[in-house]
């Protein structure tokens, strides 16, 4: 099991009433598995993703990534762990605005050494069809190109787990297909994908779909085959 989230709860303590984002949620993703988390806005999807990514410690429950609990590590060790085991893709891309495509893809190599980083970055850029944008900054890219750049960045260090938060939310159909295709391809190579989305089409690519409602797991649904459009 590459990702094992067990009985995790998370409550946000705000100035108003406490907000229970997750309540005893368990999710497991095996190597080669594409899991989607579906639910309405505010149901706790993003919180689940942050907890899964070692970015937000749960109040209760445990998280195991590739057999290790990241929350048992110090902050710096956890950062290094993320740099070697986890890839992130966000709806807002979160590219570094002053770096060109190549440098953005290479950014994780600042955190942890990646063997032959430049060659691998160029290969990923070619693979995602944005090699003609190699030295363009995010401001000069289309949204699809930005997301493909973000995806290439997430894959540079060959992570075990890829966490994607609404990666197709801002994309047109063509780019959505391309991104989802790449995610699928990642799982085909043995990686684990945890996708958070309320896009039915994106979810249709998942091997397993988990539904969240008010921070609780509703019920697992049988996997549907991906239907390329």
């Amino acid at each position, binding site marked *: 099991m590459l990702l094992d989230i067990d009985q995790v709860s998370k409550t946000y303590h705000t100035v108003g009433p406490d907000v229970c984002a997750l309540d005893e949620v368990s999710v497991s993703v095996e190597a080669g598995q594409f899991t989607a988390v579906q639910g309405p806005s505010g149901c706790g999807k993003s919180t689940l993703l942050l907890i899964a990514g070692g*970015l937000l410690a749960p109040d209760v429950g445990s998280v195991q990534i590739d057999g290790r609990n990241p929350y048992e590590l110090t902050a710096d060790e956890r950062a290094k762990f993320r740099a070697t085991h986890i890839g992130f893709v966000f709806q807002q891309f*979160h590219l*570094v605005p002053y770096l060109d495509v190549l440098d953005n893809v290479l950014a994780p190599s*600042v955190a942890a050494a990646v063997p032959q980083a430049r060659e691998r970055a160029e290969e990923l850029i070619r693979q995602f069809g944005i090699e003609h944008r190699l030295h363009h900054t995010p401001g000069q890219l289309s949204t699809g190109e930005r997301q493909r750049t973000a995806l290439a960045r997430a894959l540079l260090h060959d992570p075990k787990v890829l966490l994607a938060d609404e990666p197709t939310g801002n994309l047109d159909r063509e780019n959505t297909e391309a991104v989802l295709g790449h995610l699928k391809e990642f799982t085909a190579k043995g990686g684990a994908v945890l996708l958070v989305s309320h896009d039915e089409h994106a979810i249709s690519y998942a091997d397993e779909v988990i539904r969240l409602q008010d921070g609780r797991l509703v019920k697992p649904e049988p996997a549907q085959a991906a239907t390329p459009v």
Partner: protein
Amino acid sequence: MNVLHLILREMQHRVGSSLLALFSVSAAVGCLVGALTLLRADDVRTERILSDKEQDVADAVAAKEADVAQAGADLEDAMRKITKGLGFNIYILPGDQDVNELSVHGIVSKTMPASYATKLADSDIITINHLLPMVMEKTTWKEFEEDIILIGTRGEIPLKERALKKPLLQQVPAGSIVVGYGLHSKHGFKKDQKVKLNGREFTVKETLPERGTSDDATVWISLAEAQDMLGRENLINMMQALECNCATEDRVAEIRRDLARILPGTQVIELGDRALARAEARNTAKKTAQETLKRQKAAGAADLQREKTGRQKLKDEHEGFAAVLVPLAVFGAAIWIGVLTFGNVRQRRSEIGILRAIGLQSAQILTIFLGKALLIGIVGAVVGYAGGFVVGTTWGGESAAILFAPSDMLLAIVMAPLLASLGSWIPAMLAARQDPAVVLQGE
């Protein structure tokens, strides 16, 4: 890809704010270096002015010294000539001579060997000048039935240990006669006139002006002729001399000691009024010269002190101004860099979040911001140093080679990065402590 690459790319991207930060560091360093350079220029100029002034004073004193020395020498010479006119002030007499006879009659009747004169002249004596041996007798100028004092002199004998000086009395050649005022005015003697003195013919060599002393009734002939006429072959009655110009406590006692050693059996008397006049004249001339020189030196020293005080006051004013301006510029720059970095951190909130998410450690985030500050500090040090030095040398009016100080450059290179880092420290710490989860959730 490394942190430096990230820093450089970000600075390139936000060139405006980077230049603002660079400008503030450069301005602070420029103020510091400019102030130091100007103060150094002040010091250099002060040193030169004071050195020139000291030289001027030294030159003036030296010139005055020369003037005073010349004036003193002139005065002393004038005094010497005047006092020399007073005549001999030391008489060396035979030991058995009654001094009263000289005082009462102006005559010395006792004799001593003429060789005493040469013996004394060849000795090591330095306490007398102008040695004049003579014979003398009060006698009657038979041709005119006139009482006179007859003096025979061979002229002054050069003293071995003394420089040759112009004689007080010129030698009277054989066959010549020098006649005192009372005698030549009474008998109408003229120069080169032939006159007879007790049967011997002489040519009048000189007729003396009135002196109001026994000289007016005196005639001078050569020593040999006088010795012959007076029957005193190889004898003299006395030697006249001038005591030396030495600054000793008791000159006559020294002369007496010398004479007792060289010519035992002689006695020395001093004509006190002449000696005193001579000594006072000499001392007055010396004192006047010394006081003039002292006044000149005091005036020069006061002038120099005034200049030093003025320059020190100016320097204090400049240092006071720099002591306010420089810390203000440095503190202002640190605050400004802090504000700029804080703005930069806020602007890069999302970037920091994603960099943390993809694995950068908090120390690396801190390095990104402090590294940028260090880089700006180093470049700012170079730019600020160059600017401050150019302004300092231009305003200071001294050459760059004189004003260049490696310590200033070192100070700038150390201070500027430190200043920029300190200014950026708090915002950089805030950035490093930023929780990526909060940032990503906020986004």
